[in-house]
């Protein structure tokens, strides 16, 4: 783009293109954007994705229904349990199974701990992206406690692989409830600490207020969800609008902000962490003894004890491992509220032992689509703050 200045003036005005990424600390993975700049102002931005594309959906289509679960968690490693959660709910709808009440409550506890886990890491790295070094160390401290909780009961720290179609792999480990209660009891004070570092810090507020404006209309038209749309004044949370796994029994608020900017997204996520801790506490109070897996021979794995003592259970287990379950012909869509927004899975069964089609509605992928709208006319340095506020997980964007 070249244009001559006023007549007689031989100087020309032109924009230049700057390549950001694929390796840049703010991209949290491998993401490249070609930015057209007029001085320091962003004129246009062209994102290039796919560096982490691993053929996720294709790989899932080659797995049996049960074998998809560990793979599902690897799609968004920051919210691992929410991935297996949505997949299990969809597969359960397809197979007509319902998880027992205790399993539903434990799933909610795990999902909310995952939300805190994901938001904590977001908060730490977001602070880091805009020049605040300290929050990261505080956030990682609490994140470590959550990983210890996951490790205690499921074995895995980052990807617990704890949910199964029809329920859970095993019951909560002894001591989990006490440790989780201890965590939620002190968590509000911890959030106060993060807020003391950022919420009223003039350096931070100047850096993020009125930056990255995404109007309510744009947010809806571009399919933004989760904290992105709630920071633009839309009070939409799938846990409230279409409750699943007993979310209608919990008392919690949906965090909504009207600012439409990076600061509002920060406030929404901070409040969501507090609400999630509240839900975990209610879940722990609600826990009643009971089965943790539904009984449906031929579709759901029988309990481990029965495999060792009952021939019939052993046969069902063997057949499920060797042949997998044959789901009825049909298609279902299930969506849940992940830390990043509407996480959905669309499953098509042709009656075979594996999904004929598995379509992953990845919220980070769709939220990233708003980047161009938010950055046009912004300063290049703000681009980093804006990109950070989307909370992208590139593994989920590229799948």
């Amino acid at each position, binding site marked *: 783009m070249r244009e001559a200045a006023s007549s007689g003036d031989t100087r020309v005005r032109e924009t230049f293109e700057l390549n950001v990424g694929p390796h840049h600390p703010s991209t949290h993975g491998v993401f490249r954007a070609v930015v057209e700049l007029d001085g320091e102002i962003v004129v246009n931005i062209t994102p290039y994705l*796919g560096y982490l594309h691993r053929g996720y959906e*294709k790989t899932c289509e080659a797995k049996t229904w049960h074998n998809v679960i560990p793979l599902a968690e690897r799609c968004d490693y920051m919210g691992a349990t929410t991935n297996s959660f949505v997949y299990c709910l969809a597969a359960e709808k397809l197979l007509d199974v319902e998880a027992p009440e205790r399993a539903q409550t434990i799933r909610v506890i795990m999902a909310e701990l995952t939300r805190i886990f994901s938001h904590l890491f977001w908060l730490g790295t977001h602070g880091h992206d805009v020049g605040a070094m300290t929050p990261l160390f505080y956030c990682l401290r609490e994140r470590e406690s959550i990983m210890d909780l996951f490790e205690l009961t499921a074995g895995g720290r980052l990807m617990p692989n704890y949910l199964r179609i029809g329920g859970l792999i095993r019951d909560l480990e002894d001591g989990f409830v006490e440790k989780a209660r201890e965590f939620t009891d002190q968590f509000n004070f911890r959030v106060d600490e993060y807020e003391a570092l950022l919420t009223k810090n003039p350096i931070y507020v100047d850096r993020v207020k009125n930056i990255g404006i995404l109007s309510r209309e744009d947010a809806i038209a571009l*399919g933004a969800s989760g904290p992105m749309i709630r920071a633009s004044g839309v009070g939409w949370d799938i846990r409230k609008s279409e409750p699943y796994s007993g979310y209608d029994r919990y008392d919690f608020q949906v965090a909504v902000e009207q600012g439409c900017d990076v600061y509002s997204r920060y406030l929404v996520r901070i409040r969501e962490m507090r609400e999630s801790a509240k839900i975990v506490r209610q879940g722990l109070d609600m826990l009643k003894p009971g089965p943790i897996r539904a009984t449906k021979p031929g579709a759901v794995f029988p309990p481990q004890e029965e495999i060792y003592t009952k021939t019939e259970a052993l046969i069902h287990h063997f057949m499920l491992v060797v042949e997998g379950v044959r789901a009825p012909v*049909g298609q279902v869509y299930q969506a849940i509220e992940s830390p990043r927004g*509407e996480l*959905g899975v669309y499953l098509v069964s042709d009656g075979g032992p594996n999904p004929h*089609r598995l379509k992953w509605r990845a919220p980070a992928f769709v939220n990233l*689509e708003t980047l161009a709208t938010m950055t046009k006319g912004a300063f290049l340095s703000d681009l980093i703050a804006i990109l950070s506020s989307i909370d992208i997980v590139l593994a989920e964007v590229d*799948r």
Partner: protein
Amino acid sequence: MNQQEIRDKLFAQFGEEVIQGEIQFRDQITLTVDRGRITSVCRFLREDPELAFDFLSFVGAVDRFPNHPRFEVLYQLYSLRNNHRFRIKALVDETDSEPAAIDSVVAVWPTADWHERETAEMFGISFGGHPDPRKLLLPDEWTCHPLRKDFSLDGSEEETPDLPREVEQGS
């Protein structure tokens, strides 16, 4: 509105000429819409005040190889105003002389942009009138469509090279 009411409303508006089929599974209904009328059906779904499907969750496709028509293009919709979901699909076929094609709905829901680009490269379905029909996730030099059922999970040296051929030859 529940699934049945949305279905009835679409039938009343467009009739059996446009709504070519329906499938009910569990509590979800999927309507098959005539491929040529997809944009007008989508526009109606978004603009009718009772339906008000202002939010598009995703556009995707299913490969029914070796059956014909080969592809289903899916539109999963949600209404923020009325809190209901619905799904429509259109059947798209591919013949030796005619590639698979359907009109783009980016003008109705701007979010369809990336979904359609992804579906186009993964299945080889072209979206007519798409404002930016470049590839999204796959390398530009790949000519294959990996989510098709006749594409091997392993890929191949010819179809899915790790590096562009010029780089490999050291030029």
